[in-house]
């Protein structure tokens, strides 16, 4: 187990820079999730940690060693790839023991290490199979087993669940989380799925276009997104954004609707702002008018898509909504779900 420090990390392919100076501190035993839209540089960052990409600038430290110029095998890391990258010509047991075999560990000792790892992952009865004889979820577990057997300083995962179906993804998510609680190995986990990030992480790093937008605990990001990007990225359904002008009564939208603001923070009167509204923070029975367009009851909740102040918003109601399309309902907004952002810079204004 070790801490990982990423300091001003840059990466360019030829003339194009894809990482523009990334700083992340990862404490010993922490589970850190890198999340962001496709192409933002998550995999690149992870591969630089692994030593599979050359580092163009900045520094990576694992423990207190600078590893910039160390080859992957000297970094004491284990990586799980998106397509598992199991060796097709080796059995499950051989796949899991491969790294030990390379480092010259004796056969009996390898078996001793492979067995408990296989048992943790429920693979004990599959040790003699070849990867092609396994299901997707089992392959995924073998890939993790291969990492566990190494007992490395750091686990690196690159979208390990993206090839699995939705249900399996949920159960594997829990398994990985469990595993981490058991082994307490420092983990860096890449995903573009914010739910995965929210549910698994001790700490989330939100990336966008090669920079870090915000680092924080899952609920911190949800409760206090630092800018519009994070606000729109974290949370499902996504936060609603309404353009308006800040004033003493609240935020006035284009059609004159005034929305309440309790925590104005740094907002000044007359400033162009974006009024961020969490779908979950709406409830029936208030004086904010919402014209219903579509209702989607899911049983426990009802999703309502409607018009509010000339913009389309989505609301999630814990009560049943019986309004027909075209009807207007009055809603109440929980102050905790309101976030003000500067329209020009996108930065957070509320406290």
């Amino acid at each position, binding site marked *: 187990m070790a801490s990982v420090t990423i300091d001003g990390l840059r990466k360019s392919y030829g003339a194009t820079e894809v990482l523009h100076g990334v700083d992340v501190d990862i404490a010993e035993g922490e589970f850190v999730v890198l999340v962001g839209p496709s192409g933002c540089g998550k995999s690149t960052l992870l591969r630089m940690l*692994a030593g599979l990409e050359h580092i163009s600038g900045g520094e990576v430290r694992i423990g207190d060693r600078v590893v910039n110029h160390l080859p992957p095998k000297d970094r004491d890391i284990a990586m799980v790839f998106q397509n598992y990258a199991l060796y097709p010509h080796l059995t499950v047991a051989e796949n899991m023991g491969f790294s030990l075999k390379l480092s010259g560990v004796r056969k009996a000792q390898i078996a001793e290490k492979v067995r408990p790892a296989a048992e943790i992952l429920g693979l004990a009865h599959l040790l003699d199979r070849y990867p092609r004889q396994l299901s997707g979820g089992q392959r995924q577990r073998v890939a993790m087993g291969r990492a566990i057997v190494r007992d490395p300083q750091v686990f690196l995962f690159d979208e390990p669940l993206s090839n699995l179906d939705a249900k399996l993804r949920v159960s594997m998510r829990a398994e990985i989380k469990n595993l981490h609680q058991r082994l307490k190995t420092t983990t860096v986990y890449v995903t573009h799925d914010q739910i995965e990030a929210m549910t698994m992480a001790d700490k989330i790093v939100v990336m966008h276009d090669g920079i870090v937008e915000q680092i924080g605990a899952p609920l911190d990001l949800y409760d206090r997104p630092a800018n519009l990007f994070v606000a729109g990225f974290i949370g499902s359904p996504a936060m609603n954004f309404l353009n308006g002008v800040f004033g003493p009564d609240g935020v006035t939208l284009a059609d004159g609707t005034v929305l309440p603001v309790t925590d104005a923070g740094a907002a000044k009167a007359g400033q162009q702002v974006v009024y961020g509204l969490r779908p979950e923070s709406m409830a029936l029975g208030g004086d904010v008018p919402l014209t219903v367009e579509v209702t989607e009851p899911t049983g426990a909740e009802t999703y309502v898509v409607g018009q509010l102040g000339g913009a389309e918003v989505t609301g999630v109601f814990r009560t049943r909504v019986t309004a027909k399309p075209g009807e207007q309902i009055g809603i109440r907004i929980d102050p905790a779900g309101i976030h003000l952002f500067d329209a020009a810079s996108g930065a957070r204004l509320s406290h």
Partner: protein
Amino acid sequence: MAKTAPTDDHSEGMDHFDSRARRILTLWLPLACFVFVLLFPFYWMAITAIKPNYQLTDYENYSPFWVVEPTLRHIRYLLFETTYPAWMWNTIVVSVVSTALALVASVFAAYAIERLRFRGARMTGLLIFLAYLVPPSILFIPLAVIVFQVGIFDSKLALILTYPTFLIPFCTWLLMGYFRSIPYELEESALVDGATRWQILTKIVLPLSVPGLISAGIFAFTLSWNEFIYALTFISSSENKTVPVGVLTELVRGDIYEWGALMSGALLGSLPVVILYSFFVDYYVSSMTGAVKE
């Protein structure tokens, strides 16, 4: 054929008949023609090898397509009264050694070009391919000069060292295609697992390329086995010749063709290749049609 309003069973019956007739016409008949054209020379070779001499040219009393009173005379003659066994041995040694040399060199070349990403890798690949395009009928003249000056003229070494000039480009290209089909992630995973380049090559890439290696090997072996021009130019003494050259230069005396012995020689000479193919046909087909799958 007039189309009747289809009642289900009726039309199905017609379809069935129709499709079977069509299958015969479109599949089996062309296939039969193809097989006939392919195998007829072998048949001819085989029956000529065991035909007594007096039947060979006498088409009036004997059918040219059949043998009466088959004989092993030609084969006996070939094996015990000519240097054929030596030719066979030479061909085997030359083919096996040059194939092995070519494979080893090609594995390194192909892997380096595909995966080491050094500058000029693509260019090197292209040049190797161009080298393959130069026909042996042009190359044999400069090669002959070299062979002479190095002092290996009229020895197996002359062939063992010159055959790779066309085997290596060929095998390199075949293996490059094969290595390309191995996912990068596997090698990266091995790198993270602590493997060196050499270990990646020997423990991951080569085991996964076995079908490719086998088909490259078979190709190279067949090419060397049948090679004619170099063997004809670089070898002069009878006991150093290879089968294709020996059969043609020693069994044709002036305008006398010893057809029986010639055909026996060709028949025996093609057996090792046939056996080799039949052993590895599965690998061979899979390497031509499929790639590495996880």
